[in-house]
């Protein structure tokens, strides 16, 4: 009896490093075991392929009206036809430009405003109470106003998207600044940092994780703002195309555009992830 107990303790002691190496091996594939992981991937593929196949069959057997709901094969044809077209290129450029402008301007302005509110009690006392009410306006409702003011221009789209993006990041940056570890601030001061140094070397780096979470969100919202604005009224852009093809019952082309938008969003998100991982490499243990 004693022998077995002793044996088991010695063996665990010897084998102690094993769980760690096992964990390291499993690490690249997440916390799941390889078997489970294969199953999950298989399930995902079955889900997608199954859905597409069901959709296709439903269209061919006329269970659903393809004029209204489209059909995967039709979408594929539409993609081959629409993507290389001049119209698609012009729309992509117009929409992309507006997204880029609104994302950059809105994020920078929003972050700066948020930082100012977070750092200055006076500014926050004056402007802070307006943030929530303004942010609760359904911004799409402002689109007609902007179109009246700025016409059917890029400015109209950009301004609408900025009104969404700005407030998200302002709120975000304000919160990030306020939650900076008080100990780090004291340490910075006794280490000899003045206000600008504190901002640059303590406050901003502390805020990076929160700001990044906000930036992801703002990208999605600048996409939303621009496309929505184009759908309401514009001379060009992806949003206009969606409206045009929908109203002329070219549903397959509408889906083709949506697929392109999804791919675009996924790619941009992946870029964000990579950047975030690099910037926040210090968070790895």
């Amino acid at each position: 009896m004693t022998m077995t107990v002793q044996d088991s303790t010695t063996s665990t002691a010897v084998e102690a490093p094993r769980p760690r190496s096992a964990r390291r091996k499993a690490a690249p594939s997440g916390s799941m075991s390889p078997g489970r992981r294969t199953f999950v991937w298989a399930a995902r593929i079955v889900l997608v392929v199954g859905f597409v196949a069901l959709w296709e069959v439903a269209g061919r057997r006329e269970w659903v009206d393809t004029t209204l709901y489209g059909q995967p094969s039709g979408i594929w044809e539409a993609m081959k036809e629409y993507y290389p077209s001049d119209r698609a290129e012009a729309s992509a450029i117009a929409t992309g430009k507006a997204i880029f402008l609104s994302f950059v301007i809105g994020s920078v302005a929003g972050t700066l405003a948020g930082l100012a509110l977070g750092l200055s009690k006076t500014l926050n006392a004056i402007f802070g109470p307006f943030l929530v009410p303004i942010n609760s306006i359904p911004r799409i409702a402002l689109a007609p106003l902007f179109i009246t003011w700025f016409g059917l221009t890029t400015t109209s789209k950009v301004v609408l998207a900025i009104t969404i993006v700005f407030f998200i990041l302002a709120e975000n940056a304000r919160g990030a600044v306020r939650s900076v570890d008080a100990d780090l601030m004291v340490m910075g001061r006794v280490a000899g940092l003045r206000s600008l140094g504190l901002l640059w070397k303590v406050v901003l780096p502390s805020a990076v994780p929160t700001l990044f979470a906000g930036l992801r969100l703002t990208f999605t919202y600048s996409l939303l703002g621009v496309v929505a604005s184009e759908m309401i009224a514009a001379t060009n852009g992806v949003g206009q195309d969606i409206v045009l093809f929908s109203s002329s019952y070219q549903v397959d082309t509408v889906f083709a555009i949506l697929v392109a938008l999804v791919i675009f969003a996924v790619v941009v998100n992946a870029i964000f992830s990579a950047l975030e991982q690099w910037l926040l490499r210090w968070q790895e243990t």
Partner: protein
Amino acid sequence: MTTSYISIADVSQVFRLRTERGAEGASGSSRELVALQDIDLEIPSGQFVALVGASGCGKTTLLNMMAGLIEPSGGTITVGGRRPTLPNPDIGYMFARDALLPWRTAQRNVELPLETRGVRRSERAARAKEMLDMVGLKGRERQFRLQLSQGMRQRVALARTLAADPSLLLMDEPFAALDARTKLAMQMEFLGIWERHQGSEATKTVVFVTHDLQEAVLLADRVIVMLPNPGRIAEDRIIDLPRPRAERLGEILYTDAFKAIAHDLFECLEGAIQRPASAQAREA
């Protein structure tokens, strides 16, 4: 008086606390908390002074006044003949939490106080490496906070505190968050560094806040016992245990001289708060 490096005269600190009420509109009666009352203290250059007391006795407040983080509500305080203000290149400050910037490597953390003093990049790096080596962290220069153990983090914090070679070290329970063994190792290391600087030009005055009486007696030249409500100095005792002590900290703990002083100060510290005799017996 003129020979004092730190001079504290008649200092008091009153915090106004708004009493918590359920309704916000209720007439805001405020209560005054006397954190410090009529503190007089002279600290000569190069002395290692420990401030000991239970929480709420104002020891950290007093330390923060010396750092220039808080202004006293009454009285005067001078450090090196001047009213303490920040930024102050003459001080090094360390607390129980490491307060390392997690996005900086160990080396870049140690460089921070050098950056604010305008030291050139190459010189900073060399100095930071040297300091990390001194606290036993050679080879850890490029690691981030999360990759270091609690004890290592506190070592980096110590290296950072000492990096710019300040003449005044203000330490707020710097080893309180460490386990007993790491704590003793850190105490030995820190005391060793301090004792090596004694008598040289780089001699350092230390004000060391702790709630651990043994630690205070073990390390300091002089122990100031403080009591709360209102925060005040109850006892000011020179500790005449021979120096250097760093190598012998473990032994000193068991010497009769140490025990006698510690016991005596313990009576003073706990005597004010009526406690059962069993608690005192435990300490002895």
